[in-house]
């Protein structure tokens, strides 16, 4: 009996039970969601270092049945999703008191976690689509949870663009099925490599383009980013932390990696795979530049963080795209490994510091009633714990050594330059300084400076709100200092899983 299906079954069951019991038991949401996410977090930590597992649902062997695959890449995402999920629920316990209908909130939250866990564990293209929709629908509803004018508008925009992405992904899945006659990812990959050894057929290229557009919309890469700067600030703070911290990564970046590395594959024998890799790099560079430049001018704290998410997700996909390009052009394999490692390292770092920053924006809003940076200042003096942990996250995301964000950006930049992409490397370095600039702005306007305006009457938030901040701050520092431990146990299995597409086929099909 493997634990793999429980990652989906537990949150799905909780999502069903919470509103059912909520009619009689007022705190059902708090109790069950905390218990469920804590259990999931422990399970995800336990799965570190375990060998890759394939679970055949209902005992049907692939390619006929649906397989759930837990390899290094899935474990990396599971850790991010479930730990951030647990901390966000813990933060919600106090923060969400100002809202009504809490059982519905926790139910939707668990549904979102179930969907994301399903996406990262699914070994079947259509199953991936279904879980993607489960997570997306829950997050549309959660963005609009406040039901104020702004929240509804942001939720509606997110819903419209997310639905377009889903339609594109479904179209691509239909096309892949029409060409290969299978939906199991490993089986599709084998069919493509056997039947189309030399060149991808036009239908498959259309499918790849549709997949790329759909996943870029879900990952909010520029020019598909329009929904993110509205949706992420409008959501309640714990949801913003989940959306920026893990949703765009598991639904966008992870799904993109899985489909392009394992199903379509990057190799010199497939000339069209170079086009896909170049496309990923182009969107990444656009995101880094546009996200970074737009973030500088923002005075709404959460809006600044949202634009910064666009830029940072660009760094993640830049690392992965450079790795893919090296593989597709037949370059040195160790260089591709380095680039992918950098991208994945930045992915997990960004999950830690961006969710910390969004949670602390919520804590500051809870204490002062505003998130306008012009009315804030001197948070460090009135709220020492929140101020210190926010500061650590800002230093980490800005790329100051020895924090985690510095190392991951360094690895990505070194790999980009070594791959011969000097212009792109130069842009990425320049934009790293822009990132530093707008986090210096955050520090000056929010954390340090004179105590003014709304902050004067503020007090430190209760422990249940600042403990998640402290845990994430420890993670930010720890990932920077203890890289050998983290890298060996979590990142290298994920990198190897991405690099060896043939191993994945062997793992699933036996």
């Amino acid at each position: 009996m493997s634990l793999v299906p429980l990652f989906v079954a537990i949150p799905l069951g909780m999502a069903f039970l919470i509103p059912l019991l909520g009619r009689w038991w007022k705190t059902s949401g708090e109790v069950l969601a905390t218990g469920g996410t804590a259990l999931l977090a422990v399970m995800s930590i336990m799965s570190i270092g375990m060998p890759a597992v394939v679970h055949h649902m209902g005992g049907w062997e692939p390619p006929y049945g649906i397989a759930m695959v837990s390899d290094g890449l899935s474990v990396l995402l599971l850790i991010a999703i479930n730990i951030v999920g647990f901390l966000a629920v813990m933060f919600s316990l106090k923060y969400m008191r100002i809202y009504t209908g809490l059982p519905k909130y926790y139910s939707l939250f668990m549904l979102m976690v179930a969907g994301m866990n399903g996406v990262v564990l699914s070994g079947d293209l259509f199953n991936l689509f279904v879980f993607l929709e489960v997570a997306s629908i829950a997050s549309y509803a959660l963005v609009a949870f406040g039901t104020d004018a702004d929240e509804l508008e942001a939720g509606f925009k997110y819903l419209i663009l997310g639905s377009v992405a889903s339609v594109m992904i479904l179209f691509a899945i239909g096309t892949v099925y029409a060409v290969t006659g299978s939906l199991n990812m490993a089986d599709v990959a084998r069919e493509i490599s056997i039947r189309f050894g030399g060149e991808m057929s036009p239908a498959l290229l259309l499918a790849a383009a549709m997949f790329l557009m759909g996943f870029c919309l879900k990952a909010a890469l520029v020019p598909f980013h329009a929904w993110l700067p509205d949706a992420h600030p409008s959501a309640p703070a714990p949801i913003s932390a989940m959306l920026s911290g893990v949703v765009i990564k598991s639904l966008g970046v992870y799904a993109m990696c899985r489909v392009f590395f394992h199903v379509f594959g990057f190799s010199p024998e497939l000339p069209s795979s170079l086009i896909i890799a170049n496309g990923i790099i182009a969107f990444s560079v656009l995101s880094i530049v546009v996200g970074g430049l737009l973030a500088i001018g923002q005075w709404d704290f959460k809006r600044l963080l949202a634009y910064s998410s666009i830029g940072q997700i660009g760094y993640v996909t830049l690392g992965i795209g450079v790795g893919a390009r090296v593989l597709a052009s037949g370059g040195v394999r160790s260089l591709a490994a380095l680039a992918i490692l950098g991208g994945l390292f930045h992915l997990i770092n960004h999950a830690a510091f961006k969710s910390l920053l969004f949670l602390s924006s919520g804590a500051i809003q809870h204490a002062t009633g505003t998130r306008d940076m012009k009315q804030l200042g001197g948070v460090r003096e009135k709220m020492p714990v929140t101020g210190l942990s926010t500061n650590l996250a800002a230093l980490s995301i800005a790329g100051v050594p020895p924090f985690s964000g510095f190392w991951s950006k360094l690895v990505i930049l070194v790999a980009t330059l070594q791959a011969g992409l000097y212009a792109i490397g130069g842009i990425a370095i320049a934009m790293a300084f822009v990132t530093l600039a707008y986090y210096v702005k955050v520090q000056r306007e929010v954390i340090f400076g004179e105590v003014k305006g709304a902050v004067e009457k503020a007090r430190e938030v209760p422990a249940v709100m600042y403990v998640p901040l402290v845990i994430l701050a420890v993670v930010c520092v720890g990932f920077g200092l203890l890289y050998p431990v983290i890298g060996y146990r979590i990142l290298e299995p994920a990198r190897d899983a991405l690099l060896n597409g043939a191993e994945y086929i062997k793992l699933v099909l036996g």
Partner: protein
Amino acid sequence: MMVYFLCLVLMTMGLYCLVAKKNIVKKVLGIVIMDYAVNLYIIVIGYKTGGVAPIVEPGMSEGMYARFVDPLPQALVLTSIVIGLGVLALMVSMCVRLYEKHGTFDMSAISKLRG
């Protein structure tokens, strides 16, 4: 081949409706048209002229198996329709709430956030 192009045309019509119309209910209709175009496309993939239901009965010859239609696309479309229904319900309820707040369905009057 023609039917595939017609599905694509229908999908583009939905996309045009989504992009060009300002009324949010019409945008919702655009999404629905796109969704159904893709459902139709997947059904067309599994279509077979003169096909029979894929049920094996005693006394069937090997040659009859070749006339079986592929049941998988139909299962996919069934799932996709249910998902589409969920999304549609959420979209319509958001439209109703937006109308309650603003008294209009016009997106340009509703839109205050700067993207």
